[in-house]
């Protein structure tokens, strides 16, 4: 992200200001100066525009904190043909995302402080949104040796993840969570028992059986999550399940939270808005891990988001190209891009009446920011001036040729959305839209 230079204050007027951190949803304005919020909400109206301020009339559109996406895979370093930090940041900005948290499974894997430093510096020089790298939880993501959690954290790693690989060795996981606790480090874990999921490539059930595809039972996720939650209790570590997909996982999580454990969970936008039937005739853009589940499961996950059991919504952005996706379903890579469509897809849940707008935005702003200990994701005075302006009712269709991401593997090709991002501001600077 480019460094800030002096610029005139900006007043966004005639706005519907939503700040989930304060549960604020009111007509008002947002005043920004020197890269931070001066005031946001009805009170910002009273102050008027300061001398020399740029005034932008939002015409009733929503001004909310810029979104925080804590599960983004970028191809830099190692697979720049799929996505660079620069291209990912442009895609993020187009989707109203002002902070991305990157996954450590690049090539090389981010398991060394020098590599954390590399990502931060590349981001500073080339990216137009904030980038916070996660570092590898274990060396080479092999699930065996602990990485240098203290040094990596000092270098700027915002959390620790084992990427797409679950740590199967319970003893290793126990020690990781114990050690990470000393550094107040958040452990983010992909919950999938690889022995149980085996060669599975889609949700186990009738659909996979007719297609003749090897399948993954829900229990692969539930067993791994339940183990992790017991270890969280044993160790007192800070734990975040990366992306859940099953009803029983939600029940286990709710029990752990009720018992007072420091545990949270995310869900990908794909698992909230798509189901296994979308795979249709072997469409590989819908192949992901965890796999898309049944409609019943999807609805249960939406309910878990609405009642607050699930804390965070992520894009699970994972750029893949034709070399990895244009294969028979079982042989294609997992993953879908999602930065540009995160908010619009999420608004489907609001328009369907399943989730209120405040809850949706909280799961994309202050909830992940709080979990990661970042000052963003809120419009309180003094917070970084990261803002998304969007019209929740504007219809649009996703045109594949206009995707900013270098990879085009979107599950929302030609999808119709209601609700579009109009402007994105990072550190008080409006990004070109």
């Amino acid at each position, binding site marked *: 992200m480019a460094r800030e230079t002096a610029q005139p204050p900006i007043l966004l007027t005639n706005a519907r200001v939503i700040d989930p951190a304060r549960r604020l949803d009111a007509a008002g304005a947002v005043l920004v100066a020197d890269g931070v919020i001066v005031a946001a909400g009805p009170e910002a109206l009273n102050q008027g525009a300061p001398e020399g301020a740029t005034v932008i009339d939002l015409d009733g559109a929503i001004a909310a904190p810029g979104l925080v996406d804590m599960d983004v895979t970028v191809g830099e370093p190692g697979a720049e043909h799929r996505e660079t930090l620069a291209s990912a940041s442009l895609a993020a900005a187009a989707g109203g995302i002002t902070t991305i948290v990157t996954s450590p499974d690049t090539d090389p894997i981010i398991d060394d402080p020098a590599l954390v430093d590399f990502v931060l510096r590349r981001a500073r020089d080339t990216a137009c949104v904030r980038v916070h790298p996660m570092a590898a939880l274990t060396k080479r993501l092999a699930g065996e040796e602990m990485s240098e959690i203290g040094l990596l954290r000092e270098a700027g790693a915002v959390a620790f993840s084992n990427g797409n690989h679950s740590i199967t060795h319970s003893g290793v996981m126990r020690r990781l969570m114990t050690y990470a606790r000393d550094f107040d480090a958040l452990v983010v874990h992909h919950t999938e028992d690889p022995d149980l999921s085996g060669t599975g490539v889609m949700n*186990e*059930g*009738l659909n*996979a*059986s*007719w*297609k*003749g*595809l*090897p*399948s993954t*039972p829900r229990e692969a996720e539930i067993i791994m999550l339940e183990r992790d939650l017991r270890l969280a209790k044993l160790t007192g570590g800070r734990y975040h399940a990366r992306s859940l997909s099953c009803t029983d996982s939600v029940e286990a999580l709710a029990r752990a939270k009720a018992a007072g454990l420091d545990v949270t969970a995310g869900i990908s936008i794909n698992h909230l808005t798509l189901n296994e039937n979308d795979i249709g*005739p*072997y469409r590989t853009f819908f192949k992901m891990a965890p796999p898309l589940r049944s409609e019943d499961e999807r609805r249960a996950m939406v309910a878990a988001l609405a009642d607050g059991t699930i804390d965070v919504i992520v894009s699970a952005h994972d750029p893949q190209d*034709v*070399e990895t996706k*244009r*294969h*028979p*379903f*079982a*042989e294609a890579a997992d993953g879908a891009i999602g930065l540009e469509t995160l908010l619009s897809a999420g608004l489907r849940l609001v328009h369907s009446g399943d989730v209120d707008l405040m809850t949706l935005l909280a799961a994309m702003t202050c909830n992940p920011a709080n979990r990661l200990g970042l000052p963003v994701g809120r419009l309180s005075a003094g917070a970084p001036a990261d803002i998304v302006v969007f019209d929740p009712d504007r219809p649009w269709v996703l045109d594949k040729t206009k995707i900013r991401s270098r990879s085009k593997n979107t599950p929302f090709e030609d999808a119709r959305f209601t609700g579009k991002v109009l402007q994105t501001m990072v550190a008080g600077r409006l990004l070109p839209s």
Partner: protein
Amino acid sequence: MSAQTSPLADAYPHRHLLGIEGLQPHEILALLDRAEAAVEISRQVEKKKAVLRGRTQINLFFEASTRTQSSFEIAGKRLGADVMNMSVSSSSVKKGETLIDTAATLNAMHPDIIVVRHHAAGAVHLLAQKVGCSVINAGDGAHEHPTQALLDALTIRRHKGKIARLTVAICGDILHSRVARSNIILLNALGARVKVVAPSTLLPNGIRQMGVEVCAKMREGLADADIVMMLRLQRERMAGAFIPSVREYFRYYGLDAEKLSAAKPDALVMHPGPMNRGVEIDPEIADGPQSLIREQVEMGVAVRMAVLEALSAHLPNR
């Protein structure tokens, strides 16, 4: 096009044959009727027809197959097509050429029909999207093997005079079997009662919702059966994983005279081949009077001729 359509083209209005799923019962019956005629052609001295004269048929096999590939080759040649066999060994796939690359390369040579076998489910669908010619699925992973189901149906109909209301027991590795899936769909479409018999580790999830009755014991599964269809056990990936041993499998699920006695006295035995004698079937049964296994091979050529002819009616420049 409409001025030139034949009755078969009207009865089978599809460009490809990717699976039994999606076919209407009358379309299946039209193919079977045509195959009856092809049986007669194959039994004559002069076996050659000109339906596919000037056409190029490529048999693209990513998985080794003797029987299916030669069956398609003979069927194509009897209809006058130029047939080219292309066996893509797994080693050349590992050189980096993807299925799509192969498809694009072949497509540039202007084939009229490509017959494809691939080890991955859905691979034939993918290929069909990327080429300009007709595509026939000769087996894709554990998904479908439509010409096998058609030849099984033809064999059954020639002996029992019908498919509807027959009881068919399909026995063995249902989980990994494309033959089982295609047969379950076809037999249900034509009104047969379908039972499956297998150890539970070899049944797909949700099998009870796939239009079959599920039995864990052979004698129970074979009760009232008019047809007993045995499936091949893929021994290399079985032992210790899905079943404890081959001898235990034969003891409980191998078809022998004792188990077959639970079926109707006039029950007939089928197997898609190649057989593992002594694993899923007793040699005495495989080569016995109730066995239709040899005849299935003959019907295979006839059914494939019928399918090729049906697709040829939709080829461009006709």
